[in-house]
């Protein structure tokens, strides 16, 4: 407990109270002395993860770039490659400015990624900080404390802003230190203003994304707010990035803050501070909307965004497997639709990409050299290049949420009632696992439909990439299996989180191992490195068997584990 200073005066407005122990200043800033302090305390782990992730990517990027492009000639080659990248590929990166410098190259390749990662954190934090506490029931007691609901909201928000500022300060420091430590050519070492300017851009972009969730959460609840804010952020990024190659998107792009701030590239030496002002104003306005909405609305009362009712046959009240499937189905459909939309967009773009290649034989030769073994101008090839890794991440995170849902039977204390019926623990775990696997199958099937639609629009072979999507589903099933085993043997509270950590770690290994020239065995730790090139029909059967073993074995182990341990 935090150190507290004794005081003799009674608390204001409490004539019945005896001598109180006052709350120390430190305790009001960090700990249990105020809503602000407790929110800071509760978000310390998320802060460490996000700051570490952003700092780590920045440091790895600096080191990798300096090692790979240590001569002026190599920088010139890089400039040529980037100049020849067709617009459809440029959509996923930032504006290529001064890419011959370390800062310019990092800004082009990884800049948006920083904004998206920090934005995701802001969305998750700001959609849930009040809504989840209200849902739990603890907010009633907090709100009965002697200050208004408005102050509770402001303190919660201030705590997140503090965390974001601290994370961005750390990012600015790492950016400055990394570029100065690893830079090899003149112009590589970044000035403080560039590092701070970049961190400011990341912070503002993140906070405006979070502010959308913050403003919606009092009305629609946590899940809907996070969903809408996530769609606004990712949609804005994609629309802004692709507005050059798809002119129809240009009017929409003008509405996105990614587009407004596209000229602010501090790492590349190009500053547009003013562009951050309207974005910051929007964030402030949305923060104010969220605070006022929380203050004025009934506590914990939200209006659900209307969705079609589940058909009775799919509700799944006839047994644990069907119940698990029925419960997880809406979430599986949501993940599947997200995957399908993105896959359809990418696959449909392959036609425009092929046209670009036909116009430029040099670029075609360059890509043939870079991507050996398959033709990236086909729908499947383009999906292999542009979709499959994101597909693994999204499907894996989808599996994490489905596993967390499976685990919620125990975490939310339903399991005791379920097991009071003639239902064995092992059978509950396994049948619930089967329900989740069925959900993953639905998610995969919906993604397949999107792929089929997009590839058909591009006029390419449909069957191969659609079959390749099975591998994405198998990967999701494999990581879900690991989650079942962990939940069964240890605790269900960490089952979903374990799956998410595996998916993120796999992504980081795939991302960092080639970048840092790590040994091949390190790269081999990522399950996705053993899955071949499924979108073009190159299947790695060892990896596929490994996925099946993890999926089936993990589910069975989860059942065995549940039989051996106490119910929480």
């Amino acid at each position: 407990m935090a150190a507290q200073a004794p005081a003799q005066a009674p608390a204001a407005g409490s004539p019945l109270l005896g001598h109180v122990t006052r709350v120390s200043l430190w305790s009001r800033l960090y700990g249990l002395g105020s809503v602000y302090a407790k929110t800071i305390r509760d978000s310390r782990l998320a802060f460490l993860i996000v700051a570490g992730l952003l700092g780590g990517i920045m440091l790895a990027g600096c080191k990798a770039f300096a090692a790979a492009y240590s001569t002026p000639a190599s920088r010139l080659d890089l400039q040529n490659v980037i100049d020849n990248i067709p617009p459809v590929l440029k959509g996923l990166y930032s504006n290529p400015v001064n890419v011959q410098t370390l800062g310019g190259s990092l800004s082009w390749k990884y800049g948006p990624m920083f904004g998206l990662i920090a934005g995701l954190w802001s969305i998750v934090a700001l959609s849930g900080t009040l809504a989840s506490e209200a849902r739990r029931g603890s907010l009633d007691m907090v709100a009965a404390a002697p200050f208004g609901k408005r102050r509770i909201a402001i303190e919660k928000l201030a705590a997140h802003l503090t965390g974001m500022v601290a994370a961005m300060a750390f990012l600015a420091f790492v950016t400055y230190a990394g570029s100065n430590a690893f830079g090899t050519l003149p112009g590589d070492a970044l000035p403080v203003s560039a590092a701070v300017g970049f961190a400011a851009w990341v912070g503002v972009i993140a906070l405006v994304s979070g502010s959308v969730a913050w403003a919606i959460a009092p009305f629609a609840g946590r899940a809907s707010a996070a969903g809408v804010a996530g769609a606004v952020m990712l949609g804005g990024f994609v629309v802004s990035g692709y507005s050059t190659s798809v002119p129809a998107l240009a009017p929409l792009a003008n509405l996105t803050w990614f587009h407004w701030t596209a000229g602010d590239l501090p790492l590349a030496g190009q500053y547009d501070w003013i562009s951050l002002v309207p974005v910051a104003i929007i964030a402030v306005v949305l923060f104010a909307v969220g605070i006022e909405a929380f203050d004025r609305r009934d506590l914990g009362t939200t209006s659900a965004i209307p969705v079609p009712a589940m058909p009775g046959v799919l509700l799944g009240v006839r047994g644990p497997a069907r119940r698990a499937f029925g419960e997880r189905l809406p979430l599986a459909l949501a993940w599947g639709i997200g995957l399908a939309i993105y896959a359809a967009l990418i696959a449909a773009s392959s036609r425009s990409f092929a046209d670009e290649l036909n116009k430029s034989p040099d670029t075609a030769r360059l890509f043939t050299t870079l991507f050996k073994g398959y033709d990236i101008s086909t729908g499947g090839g383009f999906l292999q290049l542009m979709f499959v890794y994101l597909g693994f991440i999204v499907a894996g995170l989808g599996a994490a949420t489905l596993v967390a849902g499976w685990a919620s039977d125990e975490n939310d204390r339903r399991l005791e009632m379920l097991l009071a019926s003639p239902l064995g623990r092992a059978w509950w775990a396994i049948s619930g696992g089967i329900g989740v696997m069925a959900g993953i199958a639905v998610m995969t099937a919906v993604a397949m439909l999107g792929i089929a639609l997009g590839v058909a629009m591009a006029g390419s072979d449909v069957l191969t990439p659609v079959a390749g999507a099975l591998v994405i589903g198998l990967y999701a099933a494999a990581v879900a299996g690991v989650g079942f085993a962990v939940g069964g043997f240890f605790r269900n509270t960490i089952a979903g989180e374990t799956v998410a950590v595996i998916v993120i770690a796999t992504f980081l290994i795939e991302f960092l191992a080639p970048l840092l020239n790590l040994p091949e065995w390190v790269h081999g730790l990522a399950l996705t490195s053993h899955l071949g090139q499924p979108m073009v029909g190159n299947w790695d059967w060892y990896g596929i068997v490994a996925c099946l073993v993890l999926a089936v074995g993990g589910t069975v182990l989860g059942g065995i584990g549940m039989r051996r341990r106490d119910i929480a």
Partner: protein
Amino acid sequence: MTAVIRTEKLTKSYGSHRGIIDVDLEVQKGEVFGFLGPNGAGKTTTIRTLLDLIRPTSGKAYVFEIESSADPAAIHRRIGYLPGEFALYDRLTGGQTLEYFGNLRGGVDKAYQAQLIERFDLDPSRRFREYSKGNKQKVGLVAALQNKPELLLLDEPTSGLDPLVQQTFFALMRESVKEGGTVFLSSHILSEVERSCDRVAIIREGRIARVDSVDGLRDLAHHQVELRFAGTPPADEFKKLAGVSDIVVEDHLLRLRVLGPITPVVQAAARLGVTDFLSREPSLEETFLAQYGRESAEAGAAAGAAGAK
């Protein structure tokens, strides 16, 4: 007397769902006021409106003569609140939870807090998620009581508590009143209200059905009478008497309900040769159930009749 709580036609509706309708209440300083009603009657809605956790659709609520939505912080400064359903922070211990809620009120009298913990026999070193339902309730009660508030708003406070701990709670409540505090306690358990409250409001389907002292409610009550006769009970003789209802004949036994003076029934029974006489004054619980059941039945019958037209 000063009204600590006052509501004027307080109404709260949740879209098409009923909340509370035209609730008029007045709770005086130093009272233990029971708020009785079955599940879903509107008890929690009323309390949450008093605290400005939810806003009234119409009408007004005053606590310490401060309108609830005008300055809720001024009200909260002087109250202790236990919600009907709550979940606190799983990863904090009971002690940390109490420290947090004490800090939110600017600090806490540690000696009194320790005394409460001891009297409730609470182990503050365990994490909240590890507590049983009763121990979680104890944490909530200590959090509500530890700042010695002028007004305690307690939504079903004895839920999950064993009888011994309930006694401790009622003793603390009496101490609070002795020191000048006021208690507003909601419950659906009539016996505990009968035992602990000065006055009672009965809420039914969102409306206040009656407000009275505990004794006053009992005066409203009937006598449940059983008469045994050697032969067939003369039921028709009793039907004529004022206040008699619900007559049931079982062999030689006559059961009836008497509202008001029982003397005419006693005299008639003596005249008609009763062999055994049993009269029982019902508990408040039975009174309430009888009243509530009869009104529900009458409402149902009226609705049925209207439907038949």
